[in-house]
Every structure is written in structure tokens, then in C-alpha cells.
């Protein structure tokens, strides 16, 4: 069959309720941003899952490379002093 000109891919982010951040829920195809929002409403919020929608063209997302995982995130592992549990608090001290 003849190929049609496919609509671009969009990533969809939904805020489930006031006070929470938008969270990635999936992707869909749409010809423009307005249609992407409409389709996201129909596909991802049919059961009151959201009160706000963001759509972003998928090709505008830059992702870190999974093979760089070690060099990117390893430095955090050696800095245990960034966590409160690293420190000794004498007995009897509270509110700290």
C-alpha cells in the first residue's frame, strides 16, 4: 500500500491533580499541537486521570545515553555525606 505522510510523534505529560507535577504517560501521533492535546485528552484522561496536559514533539527531547550511566551517575554514589544518615547524632538530641 502507498505510504501516507505520517503525523509526527508527541510525548504526553499529565498533571493528575493540583499540587503534583506533570508526569510522562505515553506518546501519540497528531498533525499539530492542538490535535495532540485533544487526542491526549481522549486517550489518557478518560477516567479522570488528569487536569492538565503537556505535549512535546518527541524529536525535541534530548535524552542521556544509557551507556554513559556509570560515568554520569556513579559520582553520586561516593558522596554519602550528602545524606542525613551519614551523620551521628548524640542520644537525647531531637528535632534534628
Amino acid at each position, binding site marked *: *500500500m502507498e*505510504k*501516507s*505522510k*505520517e*503525523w509526527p*510523534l508527541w510525548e504526553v505529560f499529565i498533571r493528575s491533580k493540583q499540587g503534583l507535577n506533570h508526569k510522562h504517560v*505515553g*506518546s*501519540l*501521533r497528531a*498533525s*499539530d499541537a492542538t*490535535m495532540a492535546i485533544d487526542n491526549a485528552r*481522549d*486517550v489518557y484522561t*478518560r*477516567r479522570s486521570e488528569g487536569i492538565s496536559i503537556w505535549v512535546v514533539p518527541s524529536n525535541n527531547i534530548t*535524552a542521556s*545515553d*544509557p*551507556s554513559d550511566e556509570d560515568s554520569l551517575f556513579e559520582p553520586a554514589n561516593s558522596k554519602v555525606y550528602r545524606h542525613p544518615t551519614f551523620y551521628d547524632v548524640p542520644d537525647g538530641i531531637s528535632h534534628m
Partner: protein
Amino acid sequence: MMEIDNKELENKFQQKIDRDIKIEPNDWMPDAYRTTLIRQISQHAHSEVVGMLPEGNWITRAPNLRRKAVLLAKVQDEAGHGLYLYSAAETLGADREQTIDDLHSGKAKYSSIFNYPTLTWADMGAVGWLVDGAAIMNQVPLCRCSYGPYARAMIRVCKEESFHQRQGFEIMTKLAGGAIEQKEMAQDALNRFWWPALMMFGPSDADSSHTEQSMKWKIKRHTNDELRQMFVDVTVPQIETLGLTVPDPDVKWNEVKGRYDYGPIDWDEFWQVVGGNGPCNKERVDARRKAKEDGKWVVEAAMAFTNKRNSKKSA
């Protein structure tokens, strides 16, 4: 050298799977894992979309407004499920349009159950109860599948699908408790959908070529026969509650094994339907092909509109 690198990557990959760490789209994965998933997920997507047809057949003839609204909501859900799954396949690099064209050319398969006709309103009950019931049995373990996007899509699908099964059972309950003709209609639908529902779990373990590798990769968590047995064990008591008869004289409780025995499945019928010779194969694929052809101008017009507006903006 290349081969040694691949071996090492494959070992690391399997270790991740063994430790129940999910695989995400950009992670390294063996080619066979990718192709297996693309095949399985796109077939699953096709099943959702083709699955709209036997039920869509009854929307205009639902017996009342409540039933019509419910059926419409269910069919709309199936469209959404198809979309989640096509998107998951796309994360693996599958060309969405190509996967759909493969369905239309007969190259790609979909669940054999949708090649059976829906002849009476009771079939809406049987489909929701048995077909969605069997699908849920299949999909619940897929929520723990090793591939992240597939597992996440399945979680969403399972959440939505539990109402599908209940609405089907409700239809059956009403019919089975109604007039003699209604009860006969319910029994007839059960008779026609029972065996095809058991076949939904796929060939028996001895004949299932993909099971072993898929289980090692944790794409699959149970074998076809295990899932089929679970389905029989939960469904037989439901049939009894409805006051209907299991259309298999060999079904009886096995005290020793703690499960129901059931009769032999007609695998010739299964392979015939999978091979394209079921009662509705041609009709289903023709309907999908027509939908794409008839909708093509909408796809193109929307894109032309966007391009025109964008060019105005940049001018």
C-alpha cells in the same frame, strides 16, 4: 572481536533480566529480543483494533441506551489500547505504518478469536466475559514483563479492562435469568465462544515455538497451558453460577490435582483460523484496509493544514 563484545553485552543483558531490572527503549538489547517484542506487541495492538469490529457490529442495535453507552465506552477503550501498544512498539524502532500495513497484507497476525462472528446480542455478553476474561488472564502477568514500555501499557490496559469483563458478565446474568429464549441465547453464545476462548492462549506448550526463550527473557511469565488452566479454573464456577452448561462433557473437578480437567481442543480449527480460513478473517482485514484507505484524505488534509499554517508563521 565483535562477537566477543556481543556475548558480553548479552550476558549483562540477561543478568539485568534475572535481577528483574526493566529494559528501557535506549538500552542495549539482543536483536532477537527486539524482534520478538515488536512481533508480540504489534500483534497485540492489531488484536485490540480488530477486536473493535465484532463489538462495533452491535453498537447500533444495543437493547437500550445504558447498554449502548457501555458498549461504546468499551469499544473506545479498545482503540486506546491499540494506541498504547503501537506506541510501545514504536519505542523499539518499529515503523508504525509498516506494522499496520503488515496487518493489511496478512503478514502480521492478531488474536484468532476475532475471526468469529457475533451473531446475537448474547455474544456481547460472551465476548466481554470470556474473551476479555481470557485477555486479562494473559495481560496481568504481562504487567511484569521485562520491557518497560510494554509493562506500563499493560498496567493501564488491565486497569481499564476489568470493567469490560464485568459488563459482559452482567449481560450474561440478565439473559441467563430471563425468559427461556433469553437463557437459550446465552447458552448458545457460550457454546460458540467457549472453545475459541480457550484457543486464545495459543498452541499447547509442546507446540509453542517461542515460549521457552520468551520465559527466559521474562516477556512471558507463564506458559500457554498454565494460563489456559487458570482460565478454566476460574470460569467453570462462573458458568455454574449463571445456571448454564459448560459445552464440554469432559469438564470435571479433579480432586487430586485441585483443578478442572477439560476435553481436547480442536487444534485443526485453531490452525485453520490462524492461517486465515476462519469464518471472518477476510471480512476483518478488509474492514481495516478500507478504514485506512477511506481515512487517508483526513490524515493528509490535517498534515497539509499544519504545514500551511507553519509556513505562514515563518513567512
